[in-house]
């Protein structure tokens, strides 16, 4: 019979071939399809809006398709198929599942469609490039740093994540743990990782549970926009307001109220519109042949030149930290 070992030995095949020509003309009149994890999700809507603006500027056209539920993996697969059928030139995909989209994406690439993943990656051989919102390492480490400052480097902390299977969150959490090993955090103890499944009510109750289970809890990191929002709403209506610190990834619009009423001091996020913008430009660069997705290739997006990292990862840069001072400058 076949076991995992046998499969491992087969070895992974490289996804990309061909040669990049950094000076190739950017093609116009292309169609790039955006396939977010979920349509109607404000975060993805801003990201895709960014992509749309970029494509307009580049003289190509934009379309968005996608499932209405963030857990409808089968739905997302069929949208990959739809885009393939519609023969778009490239697609930008935020994968609900690192593996599930593979077959369909490979099928698309076989049909000459360039595939960029953004926000949430698939396995590396199922796409040409991944536009990462900020390096996972940066995100994980900075969130710990943010919280540590707020609680004076001591006390119990907990993490409120999304689903247990959320790829991004899990990588970030690993880096958080990594960062916490630094001696300067010796008085900080990570007591628990809870999962709110990106559901407002569940995140709410998980927050309650954390506070009841660990009465001495000093801070919570929630690396998910839904989770941080629910946790903030709970804290702001409870006796813990201001006493238990909360940080993580949130959008300024969601969090404005809690920053102003003192529930939250600071949190961070990248600008989703920039993420979408970069994804669109990377897609066009791929179609135009400026890049193929190999490590070390470079391309220009706007004024910035991006270099493709290991495994075809293009990183957007450092996240922005929002606090009472700057939050009113942002609207997304």
């Amino acid at each position: 019979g076949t076991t995992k070992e046998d499969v491992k030995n087969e070895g992974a095949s490289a996804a990309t071939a061909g040669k990049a020509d950094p000076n190739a003309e950017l093609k116009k009149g292309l169609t790039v399809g955006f396939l977010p994890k979920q349509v109607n999700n404000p975060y993805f809507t801003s990201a895709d809006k960014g992509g749309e603006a970029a494509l307009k500027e580049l003289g190509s056209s934009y379309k968005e398709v996608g499932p209405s539920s963030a857990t409808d993996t089968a739905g997302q697969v069929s949208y990959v198929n739809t885009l393939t059928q519609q023969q778009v030139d490239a697609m930008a995909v935020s994968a609900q599942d690192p593996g599930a989209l593979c077959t369909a994406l490979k099928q698309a690439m076989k049909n000459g469609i360039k595939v960029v993943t953004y926000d949430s990656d698939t396995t590396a051989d199922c796409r040409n490039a991944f536009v990462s919102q900020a390096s996972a390492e940066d995100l994980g480490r900075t969130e710990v740093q943010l919280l540590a400052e707020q609680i004076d480097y001591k006390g119990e902390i907990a993490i409120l994540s999304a689903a247990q299977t959320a790829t991004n969150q899990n990588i970030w959490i690993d880096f958080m743990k990594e960062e916490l090993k630094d001696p300067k955090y010796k008085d900080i103890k990570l007591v628990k990782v809870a999962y709110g499944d990106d559901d407002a009510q569940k995140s709410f109750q998980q927050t309650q549970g954390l506070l009841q289970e660990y009465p001495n809890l000093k801070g919570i990191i929630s690396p998910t926009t839904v989770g941080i929002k629910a946790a903030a709403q709970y804290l702001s209506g409870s006796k813990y307001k201001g006493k238990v610190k909360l940080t993580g990834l949130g959008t300024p619009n969601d969090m404005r109220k809690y920053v102003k009423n003192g529930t939250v001091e600071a949190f961070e996020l990248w600008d989703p519109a920039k993420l979408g913008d970069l994804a669109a430009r990377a897609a066009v660069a791929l179609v135009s042949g400026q890049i193929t997705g190999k490590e070390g290739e470079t391309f220009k997006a706007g004024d910035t030149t991006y270099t493709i990292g290991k495994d075809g990862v293009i990183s957007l840069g450092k996240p922005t930290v929002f606090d009472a001072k700057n939050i009113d400058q942002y609207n997304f």
Partner: protein
Amino acid sequence: MADFPLSRAVRWDTVVGALLIVVLLLSFGFVDGFGNALNLSFLIGNTLPIALIALPMTLLVVSGEIDLSVASTAGLSGAVMGALWNQGMTIETIIPICLLLGVVCGLVNGLLVTRLGLPSLAVTIGTLAAYRGIAQIVLGSDAVTDFPTQYLDFAAGRIGDTFIPYAFLPFLVLLAIAVVALHAMPFGRSLFAIGASEEAARFAGIRVKRQKLILFTLTGLMASLTGIFWALHYASARYDNATGLELSVVAAVLLGGIDFDGGKGTLGGAIAGVFLLGALQNVMSLQDVSAQSQIVVTGVLLVLSVLGPRVARQIAVARAGRRAA
């Protein structure tokens, strides 16, 4: 039947079948990207999980019961498959184990329903949560993707350049078996009787509990088969595989004219319902109809599926009355 022209003509399952054909023909003619073999193979492949579960579900609903835990059973067997695979077990041992697990899941449902006399709706809402929960415990946050290529290719590939996915052939065999069992064998006949009146069926010497137990077990088996197929088709075993599939199955089966009070319906109708929904979704996506609007269309179709036959029946009765007068 010659003496049945009227009610035959207005039977809902025929209507759904006709509707499916019309949708297919129109799409071939007018929808870009629909008619080619690749798209059709996508359509079939993505509809297969629903179709697979719809087979036993139809039988179950005909006998007046329902199983809402199917998607969780599928998820659980996918999760166990992933977990065992990670342990280094061979896939040839894992698959039978998972199927057996499905049988056990079905058996648990069946025993709770038949031995304790609990309503299946309530029982399977319970096991819906329980099985999914166990899947979560078994596999946790893992996503297992590295199944052997020949299996993945079988589950996701198609025969040459035709529109037929490999997996469609075994499905056709299962469909044939189910059709024969429901419509041409005493077993199926007894299911209709049980669904329409359980007590009368018991008084006619039909072993109601046993038949139901068999059905729940078969449903569990098919659900786990679907779970395995799902994990291989999408090359991804996660604890939340196939979440919410039960509603899709129920919606499709209902659309196909299976009466939830039991005792009525045909497998042909149910499968036509499954593929009608699948085809419509495919076409609407190709036509850039948004996911939200697709939901509305599904809802409207469901409402029509129950209002339609009723209106048709009323027309038929009125016509018969006029003819008799």
